């Protein structure tokens, strides 16, 4: 338990992705089975334990602690599990009485304990574990890890551990169960790839590379088909041998949030597509924006009302399995024909087909790309007609050609120090645009977004220096910087979308904003106005101001 507890303590405080992966791989390499498998399950969210209610923990605590002292402690720490892990004083039994305190042994006890004995077991284990392990144990039994590690990241660490592609882990993932002994034996190199006992219903997805300079030179447009790149999330829908699931691109099971789609499945197979909300093309209703889709994302369950207000559907891109038949080795054209036939038989409110875009030359396609017919389109996908469905991101068979991002010139207003590598830099910036202030105030800046990337290291030096030399006020880690019509710092902000938002003072929220250029050539008075941003929402299309 101790090793796992130390791993959690380190992961919580480590911002760097690579460092997290190193901590995870080191742990997986050194921890024994089945401990590491249960740790993996706990981190990836596949460990099922009957959870203990916070109130039970509080009662256990108050059996041996003055309520006033407990309240002082809880007020100070703020988190119940952490407070208990810190204030609990063990009864210090003899070393020999401790029993097996490995993660595996503790999980086994928790899985077999009867309802009536849970309290006693928890009390005994709290007595025997050390402080850090108590915290990990309490996190396990309250069912909330929240340590900033996604299941995708954990799978990447597994891939690095066994020097196999993360796609292979994703493909196996849903066919394996904790404590993943066969998986680790394979990654350790002690045995072959695990044989799946249930159908592996998630298949690692095929990804596209961006069209770069001259990438299309010398390619024949006739070898490719084009389709719109829709602004939803890429998903895989599987219904095989009675197992029906909806997965995100990285293999996370998101079925729980989309019962409307799962209930509508009336075919066997595996479809690759875009998850969207609104009306399908077959129902002749508008597809809705990404911010509407967000109302449905990151939920474990969903209410009827939300489903009615934000109906979800799947727009088919590709067919991986047609019934039990593996279509992946077939060329795109063949898979597409089969997909068209399949979609035609499905319920029209929940499934439609991503339409193909006909074009004769790259120039024509470029024109289509910059003026797409629907605001929920974020670009063009190009797929070689003869390409089989191969997992991963390979250059050549599939390209994505995004439409230009939106751009505005904004004024730096606040800056905050970054984390990790950037902890000595002011690298998180809040920027604003002009709007009319209250009566008599004239124009004022209103914050419209925050960005912490997009700039180069050299540009960061410039920004950091500006912040340090032009600080007006400090609020904890945040500094407000000089921002007046004739004195301030203008940045060009690029973003992928914009929507009305009642949560922001400005009334708008940008999607994926980043600082694309430093406009040291401009004065703050030349920066954009809020009205410009609002008109982008109405237009639903990029505005090219400099062009």
């Amino acid at each position: 338990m101790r090793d796992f507890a130390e791993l959690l303590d380190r992961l919580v405080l480590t911002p760097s992705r690579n460092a997290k992966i190193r901590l995870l791989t080191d742990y997986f390499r050194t921890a024994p089975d089945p401990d590491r498998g249960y740790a993996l399950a706990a981190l990836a969210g596949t460990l099922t334990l009957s959870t203990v209610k916070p109130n039970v923990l509080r009662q256990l605590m108050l059996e041996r602690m003055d309520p006033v002292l407990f309240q002082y402690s809880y007020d100070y720490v703020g988190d119940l599990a952490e407070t208990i892990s810190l204030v609990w004083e063990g009864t210090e039994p003899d070393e020999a009485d401790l029993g097996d305190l490995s993660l595996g042994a503790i999980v086994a006890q928790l899985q077999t304990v009867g309802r009536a004995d849970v309290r006693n077991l928890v009390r005994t284990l709290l007595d025997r574990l050390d402080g850090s392990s108590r915290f990990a144990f309490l996190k396990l039994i309250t069912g909330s890890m929240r340590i900033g590690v996604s299941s995708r990241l954990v799978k990447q660490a597994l891939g690095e551990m066994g020097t196999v592609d993360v796609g292979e882990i994703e493909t196996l993932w849903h066919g394996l169960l904790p404590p993943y002994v066969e998986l680790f034996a394979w990654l350790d190199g002690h045995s072959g790839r695990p044989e799946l006992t249930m159908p592996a219903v998630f298949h690692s997805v095929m990804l596209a590379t961006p069209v770069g300079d001259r990438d299309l030179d010398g390619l024949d447009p006739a070898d490719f088909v084009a389709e719109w790149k829709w602004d939803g999330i890429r998903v895989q829908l599987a219904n095989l041998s009675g197992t029906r699931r909806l997965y995100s691109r990285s293999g996370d099971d998101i079925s729980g949030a989309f019962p409307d789609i799962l209930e509508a499945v009336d075919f066997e197979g595996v479809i690759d597509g875009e998850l969207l909300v609104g009306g399908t093309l077959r129902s002749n209703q508008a597809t809705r924006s990404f911010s509407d889709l967000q109302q449905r994302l990151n939920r474990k369950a969903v209410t009827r009302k939300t489903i009615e207000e934000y109906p979800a559907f799947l727009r088919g891109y590709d067919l991986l399995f047609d019934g039990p038949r593996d279509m992946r080795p077939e060329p795109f054209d063949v898979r597409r024909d089969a997909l068209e036939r399949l979609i035609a038989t499905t319920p029209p409110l929940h499934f439609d087909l991503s339409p193909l875009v006909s074009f004769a030359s790259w120039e024509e396609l470029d024109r289509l790309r910059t003026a797409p017919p629907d605001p929920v389109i974020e670009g063009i996908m190009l797929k070689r007609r003869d390409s089989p469905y191969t997992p991963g991101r390979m250059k050549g068979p599939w390209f994505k050609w995004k439409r230009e991002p939106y751009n505005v010139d904004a004024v730096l207003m606040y800056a905050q120090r970054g984390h990790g590598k950037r902890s000595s830099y002011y690298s998180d910036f809040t920027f604003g645009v002009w709007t009319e202030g209250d009566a008599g105030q004239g124009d004022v800046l209103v914050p419209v977004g925050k960005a912490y990337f997009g700039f180069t290291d050299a540009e960061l030096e410039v920004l950091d220096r500006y912040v340090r030399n032009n600080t007006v006020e400090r609020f904890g880690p945040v500094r407000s910087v000089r921002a007046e019509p004739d004195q301030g710092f203008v940045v060009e902000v690029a973003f992928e979308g914009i929507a009305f938002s009642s949560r922001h003072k400005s009334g708008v929220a940008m999607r994926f904003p980043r600082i694309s250029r430093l406009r040291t050539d401009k004065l703050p008075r030349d920066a954009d106005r809020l009205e410009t941003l609002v008109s982008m929402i109405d237009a639903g299309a990029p505005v090219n101001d400099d062009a």
Partner: protein
Amino acid sequence: MRPETLLYPTPKGLFCEAGGFYIDPVHPVDKALITHGHADHARSGHGEVLATRETLEIMAIRYGADFCRQSQEAVLGETMTIGDVTVSFHPAGHVLGSAQIAVSRGGTKIVVSGDYKRRRDPTCLPFEPVPCDVFITEATFGLPVFHHPPDADEVGKLLTSLRQFPERAHLVGAYALGKAQRVIMLLREAGYHEPIYIHGALVKLCDYYLSKGIPLGELRPATVTAKEKPAFAGAVVIGPPSAFADKWARRFPDPIPIFASGWMLVRQRAKQRGVELPIIISDHCDWAELTDTIREIRPGQVWVTHGREEALVRWCELEGIKARPLHLVGYDDEGE
């Protein structure tokens, strides 16, 4: 006499009227008795200063030889008479030179513990319990949440990280007086004998500890030009915590921010400060040390100062010991 008239708080600090002196005053006074050299307890500009030799020497290093008009050394365990009271100094185990100050008059004895801790510290003398009527205790970590783990385990975390991330500089934030030297000694005791790099703010005090025969091993200045940056891969660099948010930290390769402090026990505290590797090493008592000390000394009453007074007062009440908070201002109960 009533203890409340022997020593009482004033805006300038804890005052002994019968002796005409203040203990750790926060403003300049004619006569000051100083428990230890930390800046919030030992200030410059007093008339006469009475303190242990080490504390006087530390004050001279920090403020210059003219830090007061006249200084006098207090020898540990020796009783002195000042005005109508007797005074003696006893080791507090907090940092080098730290002392508790016992003040007696008419059969009433008050011990001002200053800051103190009970666990072993290779850089200073251990705390010595002194029987008394009133024990004035600090309460920096006066909440039941604070249980500082064994020092060796904490230093072990740093050594593990050095093995795990050999390409990164390990930047340890530690206060310049006491904590920095203790961390260095704990590393040496754990078998770490590489040169340790220190920030400029630590040099004079580390030199002083070395001159007192405390074997800190090889220390090098943490000065570096861009060309030498890779040389700090896998190195331990110790500096004041404030330096890490500064441009100073940029000279090191992919630094891991580490902080050696009792506050690091609470994860949210570490997170807020951007600390990636908290090392829970404190120069103050944790909850168990505070309560064990009160049980051991068993004073007639306990006065609780700087920190979380209310919890320790509550604990004393539950134990049947008379206790009250002593509201002193001007001490930095976060600086650790």
